[in-house]
């Protein structure tokens, strides 16, 4: 029995009308993402990786092509709360405590008070922030704030987690730590994750599938299925396999540039 992919994009095209004329952000993008996959989108700025993620989320409308999320249009999927979205900045509300920030989507979606508290405690535990619910965002480090924003995206139990360069603004040590935690979280929750990054090691370390994209117009230049095991200690990054995949990603990125 074959299972339908969770996210299916077919010949997706998107052109932005700007003051400097049309910008071809996505051209002929086709991709299937299966349940439980960890998919990274990597490429230089302007390659459309964020735009593609936003199309999946229904935050942008493609000008041509088809895209479905859980068999629905992205807009329907959004209204069905099919995914949690994590932005580059934590974007916590400064006037809400960490706990109330995590509860924000739950309040909007009308969960009961008791359920809100139960879920908040559960997801804060999941991101190692148990006991911080009464703190305000400014009392937390950047890495902790980003973890809180991941907890917020997990709170309403969406099966899909879309992350747009969530660790881009953090230093490397914090980033390594969060990557490790993210893998553990993925293993525990079995979510399907779409992850935008511009770091090759991050993409290779995290993903089961790496989508290499190139700019002007934004398109997919390579899709790499990672042979690495799902269980990944940090030192896997020194293994020959890891280096080989990283090499292939780098080649893909370079090939995209030669086309310019």
């Amino acid at each position, binding site marked *: 029995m074959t299972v339908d992919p969770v996210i299916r994009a077919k010949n997706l095209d998107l052109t932005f009308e700007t003051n400097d004329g049309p910008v071809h952000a996505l051209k002929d993008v086709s991709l299937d993402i299966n349940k439980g996959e960890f998919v990274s989108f990597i490429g230089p700025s302007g390659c459309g990786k964020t735009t593609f993620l936003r199309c999946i*989320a229904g*935050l942008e409308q493609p000008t041509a092509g088809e895209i479905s999320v859980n068999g629905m249009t992205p807009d329907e999927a*959004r209204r069905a709360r099919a995914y949690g*979205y994590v*932005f580059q900045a934590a974007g916590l509300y*400064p*006037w809400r*405590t960490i706990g109330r920030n995590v509860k924000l989507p739950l309040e*909007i979606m009308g969960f009961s008070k008791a359920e809100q508290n139960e879920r908040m405690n559960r997801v804060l535990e999941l991101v190692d922030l148990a006991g911080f619910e009464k703190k305000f965002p400014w009392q937390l480090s950047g890495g902790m704030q980003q973890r809180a924003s991941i907890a917020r995206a997990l709170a309403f139990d969406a099966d899909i987690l879309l992350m747009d360069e969530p660790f881009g603004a953090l230093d490397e040590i914090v980033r390594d730590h969060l990557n490790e935690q993210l893998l553990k979280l993925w293993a525990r929750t079995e979510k399907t994750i779409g992850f935008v990054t511009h770091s090759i090691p991050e993409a290779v370390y995290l993903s089961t599938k790496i989508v290499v994209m190139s700019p002007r117009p934004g398109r997919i230049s390579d899709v790499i299925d990672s042979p690495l095991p799902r269980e990944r200690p940090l030192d896997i990054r020194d293994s020959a396999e890891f280096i080989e995949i990283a090499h292939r990603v780098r080649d893909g990125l370079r090939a995209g540039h030669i086309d310019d």
Partner: protein
Amino acid sequence: MRTAFVTGCARGILMTRLNAIIPALTVVAVIVAFWTLCVIPMNAHLTADQAQREGMVLTPEAPRDRQELSGLSLALKNPAIIPLTYVQTRPRLPSPHQVVQELYDTVIDKKITSKRSLVYHGWVTLSATLLGFVMGTTLGIMLAVGIVYSRTMDKSVMPWAITSQTIPILALAPMIIVMLGAIGIQGLFPKSIISAYLSFFPVVVGMVKGLRSPDAMQLDLLRTYGTNSSQGFWKLRLPSSIPYLFASLKIGISASLVGAIVGELPTGARAGFGARMLVGDQYGQPMVTWAALFAAAITAAMLVAILSLIERQTLRRMGMGAA
């Protein structure tokens, strides 16, 4: 040990307070000193005239010759009149101690039910100020919400709001008072209208900016939750606008007070700070005018201070105050 620690803390707090107050006090001291010096030349001529009537010998002797001299040189030629410039009953410029004396008499000594009590007049102006402030703030917030949520209102209301503030209020105030008087509305309400007219504007400008302050990412986040626009307003836009609102309220409340006083001036109101300023002017009692002026300034300062206090409390409770 513990007592020493507590005293140490108390001293620390006192020192921080002093450090905050000393610069302000220095400015006040400089202004008072300058004012005190100005009293001499400003009052020199009338003091000299009066001193001569009482038998003092002056140089030059003829009042007309004295008019040729500046106040300063007249005082320098006749040092004996200098102390007298500070105790005139109808000075051109009252000295600081005379104003303080008048304030003390009319604020503390007089019963507040007396028609000569500045507390009574202050309340008359303050009640119009507060009513106008509430009306102006309400109107301002409503307009701002309309402007942020409706493109039509954005295009149509904002230019008029700006235009409204270019009309000199001194020209407009008598018209409002007279027109409302013609249909039988008098007293508090017309003055409040003028207060509201002046105070809605900073609130509109501040709140429009505040309600629009959430960035694209924060708005996108709400979209991913399928948020409707009223949830977006209560959960994101309104809380984001609170710091902007307080900045506007502080400008608005002082504008309201000015509005209420201006509303009292053109129609010869019987009560209020404006009425006292007018009375002092018309009956040659400069101390009355100056006392009313200072009382109005102190009232405005207190209103702003109260708002600052509420601001600090609110922002701290919202987790946005300084640590």
